[in-house]
C-alpha cells in the first residue's frame, strides 16, 4: 500500500471519529445547555462523513488499486495526489472551524475562510479526477 493511500485511509478514520464525536455533541445539544455554536456543526457532521470518511477512503483505495498507467509512472502524478490530499483535508478542516464561527458572527473574515475552503475542496476533486482518469482502463500489458 503506497504512503499516500495510508495517509488517506488513516485520515479517513480520524474524520469518522471526529464525525461521530460531533454527532454526540449535536445529540447532547438537544438536552444539555451546550454553547450555542454547537448546533451549527450539523453540516460539518455530514461532510466529515461524506467527504472526510467516504470520499477520502475511495480516493486512497483508487490510488492504490486501480490499473497502473505505465511501469515508469505507475500511479500517475504523485505530486498531484499529495496536492489532492492536502487540499481535501485542509479545505474540510477550514470548513469545520469556519462554518460555526461564520454562523455566530456573520459578515466577518470567517466568510472568506469558507470561500477558501470551498475552493480547496473543489480543486481536490479536480486534481483527483485528472490523476485517476487515465487509470480507468484495461489492465496494463506493457507499452
Amino acid at each position, binding site marked *: 500500500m503506497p504512503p499516500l493511500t495510508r495517509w488517506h485511509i488513516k485520515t479517513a478514520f480520524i474524520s469518522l471519529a471526529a464525525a461521530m464525536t460531533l454527532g454526540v455533541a449535536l445529540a447532547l445539544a438537544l438536552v444539555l445547555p451546550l454553547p450555542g455554536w454547537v448546533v451549527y456543526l450539523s453540516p460539518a457532521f455530514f461532510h466529515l462523513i*461524506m467527504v472526510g470518511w*467516504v*470520499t477520502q477512503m*475511495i480516493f486512497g483505495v483508487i490510488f492504490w488499486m*486501480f*490499473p497502473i498507467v505505465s511501469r515508469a509512472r505507475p500511479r500517475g502524478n504523485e505530486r498531484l495526489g499529495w496536492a489532492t490530499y492536502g487540499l481535501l483535508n485542509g479545505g474540510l478542516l477550514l*470548513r469545520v472551524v*469556519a*462554518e460555526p464561527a*461564520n454562523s455566530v458572527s456573520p459578515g466577518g473574515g*470567517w*466568510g*472568506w*475562510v*469558507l*470561500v477558501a*475552503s*470551498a*475552493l480547496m*475542496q*473543489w480543486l*481536490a*476533486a*479536480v486534481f*483527483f*479526477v485528472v490523476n*485517476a*482518469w487515465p487509470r*480507468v*482502463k*484495461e*489492465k496494463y500489458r506493457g507499452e
Partner: protein
Amino acid sequence: MPRLSQWYIKLSFGYLLAGFTVGALLLANKGRPLHPALWGLLPAHIEWLLMGWVAQLTLGVAFWILPRFWQAPRRGRTTGAVVAIVLLNAGILLVSLGAVLGLGAWATAAGRLLEIGAAAAFAHAAWPRIVGRAG
C-alpha cells in the same frame, strides 16, 4: 477493468466533479452571498454525490472485482448491469433536475423508481458471482 466498469467509473467521476462544483458554490455562498437561488441546487448536490458518485462507483467496481466464472462469459449475465447503468443515470437526472427545475414530486418518485430498477437489475446480474471462490 472491463469496458462497462470504465463507463460506470467515468460517469461517477463526472458526478463527483458536478457535485463538488455545486457544493463549493453553496459553501462559498454561505461565506459571501452570491445568489439566493443557489440553495435550489442543494437536492442536486446531494443526489449527484450520493447516487451519482458513491453508488455508481461502487457498482462499477463491484462489476469489475466480484469473482468471475471459469468459463465464458466470465462475468455472467451482463445485460442486467448494462440495464442498471442506463436506469441509474436516468433516475439520477430525473430526481436532481426534477428538484432543481421544480417538476414536482412525480418526477422525484419516477426517478427513484428508475433507481430501484437499476438496483434490481444490477443485483440480478451480480448475484451469481457472490460466491466463496470463482465458480
